[in-house]
């Protein structure tokens, strides 16, 4: 079976800064794959490169067998994947409902948009309650839900989530992780970047560990959970 997403010798740089130094990643349909690593490891750069927000310096990104390496970001949603970016980045001056509608920008069928909206509201009832409110007035947790909901509005087959638990209260973090499992059960494949290693490994099927722009370990979530496996990279040695 072809993997849903495949990175081959993927490199990304910012001028002289080598953020990602040639990594290979495979995600199969229906999986939750965690991409872990300390701050500055190159996780967000990987996500941005996949989504077209930063140019890929070398290597290839294949989505369902199609080469999407050089697609601009605006072509990404119709290809079937979306990124919920680091730091949420909801449109604060737009209402909750308008944020969600922007997520469905590429969908022209009104009924399909309403169906997607219904699904997001069922996942996040709070967003339905607050739909007329400006997104900038939501709490951090609600903004995170909005960012995920917005990414779901175009019915992606692959959802890229960059640090969805960042800056959230522990109770909300639990909710977010539970929701990610629910999404997988609904058939969405997920690439999850997290610094909350325990939380991510609890729901992931497999994980990659990044340090200094390279993959330094990969395996099933169970293997990665085993004691000590992760500690080194977070303490800086590897």
């Amino acid at each position, binding site marked *: 079976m072809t993997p849903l997403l495949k990175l081959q010798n993927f490199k990304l740089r910012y001028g002289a800064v080598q953020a990602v130094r040639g990594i290979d990643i495979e995600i199969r349909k229906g999986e939750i794959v965690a991409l872990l690593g300390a701050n500055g490891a190159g996780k967000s750069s990987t996500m941005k490169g996949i989504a077209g927000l930063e140019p890929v310096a070398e290597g290839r990104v294949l989505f369902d067998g199609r080469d999407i390496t050089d697609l601009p970001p605006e072509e990404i*949603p119709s290809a079937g994947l979306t*990124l919920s970016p680091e730091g949420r*980045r909801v449109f*604060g001056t*737009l209402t909750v409902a308008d944020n969600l509608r922007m997520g469905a920008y590429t969908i022209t069928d009104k009924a399909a948009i309403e169906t997607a909206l219904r699904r997001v509201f069922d996942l996040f009832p709070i967003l339905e309650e607050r739909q007329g409110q400006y997104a900038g007035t939501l709490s951090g947790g609600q903004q995170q839900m909005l960012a995920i909901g917005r990414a779901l509005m175009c019915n992606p087959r692959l959802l890229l989530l960059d640090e969805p638990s960042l800056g959230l209260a522990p109770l909300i973090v639990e909710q977010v992780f539970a929701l990610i499992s629910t999404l997988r059960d609904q058939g969405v494949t997920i690439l999850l970047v997290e610094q909350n290693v325990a939380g991510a490994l609890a729901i992931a099927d497999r994980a990659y560990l990044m340090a200094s722009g390279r993959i330094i370990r990969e395996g099933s979530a169970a293997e990665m959970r085993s004691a000590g496996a992760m500690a080194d990279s977070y303490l800086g040695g590897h």
Partner: protein
Amino acid sequence: MDLILQQTVNAIALGGTYALLALGLAVVFSIMGLINFAHGELMTIAGYVLMYCGLAGVPFVIGAPLAVIAAMLAAVAMERIAFRPVRNSSGATMLVTSFAVAMILQVLFQNLISARSQAVVIPDFLGQSIVIGGLVIGVNKLFAIVATLVMLVLLETFMSRQKHGIAMRAAAEDFAIARLMGIRANTVISAAFALSGLLAGVAAVLWVSQRASVDPLMGFTPVLKAFIAAILGGLGSLRGAVAGGFVLGFVEVFLAAFLPAEWQEFREPIGLSLVVLMLVVRPNGLIPAATLQAQKV
């Protein structure tokens, strides 16, 4: 009292024109961080179209929309030819590009049309006045106020209800993320320029209706004022641009009407000092753009 009401009408008419121009600048700035100094030349182009329509005997009701369409097309062409190649450059590069575009167009007007001011045929009814509740109001002032209101309502509806208007606001707030939603950068930027051309075109029709003439530098002064208005309102903020335009209109008209005669020659500096004072109190403008606030958090 009557004098105050009278001047209020004048201030709304003038402020409305500034507001339209400032809005045009703000729409483009909010999307791509460009202060388009060639905005005034869009006005001038519309002015010349009105002039040629008058010479060709085309009635004003047809000439005016043609002038507006010309300004829109010119704005879109300006973006394609001059600004797209420098889109991702620094603000300074884009600013210099816009100066260059303005100067090239001014030279073209001077050489291809005339360096001198040209008369524009304005329909008689615009020169007349009507009496409303004891106030004598020029039809051209009334026309300016109504046109401004119509434009503001249309723009507000577009920006708050239409999918593409909402997408423009999204792009203004976070361009990268807007693209991630599938909103095309080229489309949004072209649309922003078309909108700014529309606003400049309408402002030009109002401006020329008051003066009945057009010259190669016609756009310079009103757009400089609009630039001040946009800064006063909060650069990049659409509501701010409208507020700034009206405040500036009121300051100018009321100073002209009520400043003692011996002070009149200092009218402009006094007006600008008032603007600076307002900016000292509110450095980010009257209604700052959301993105500016967001950056501070």
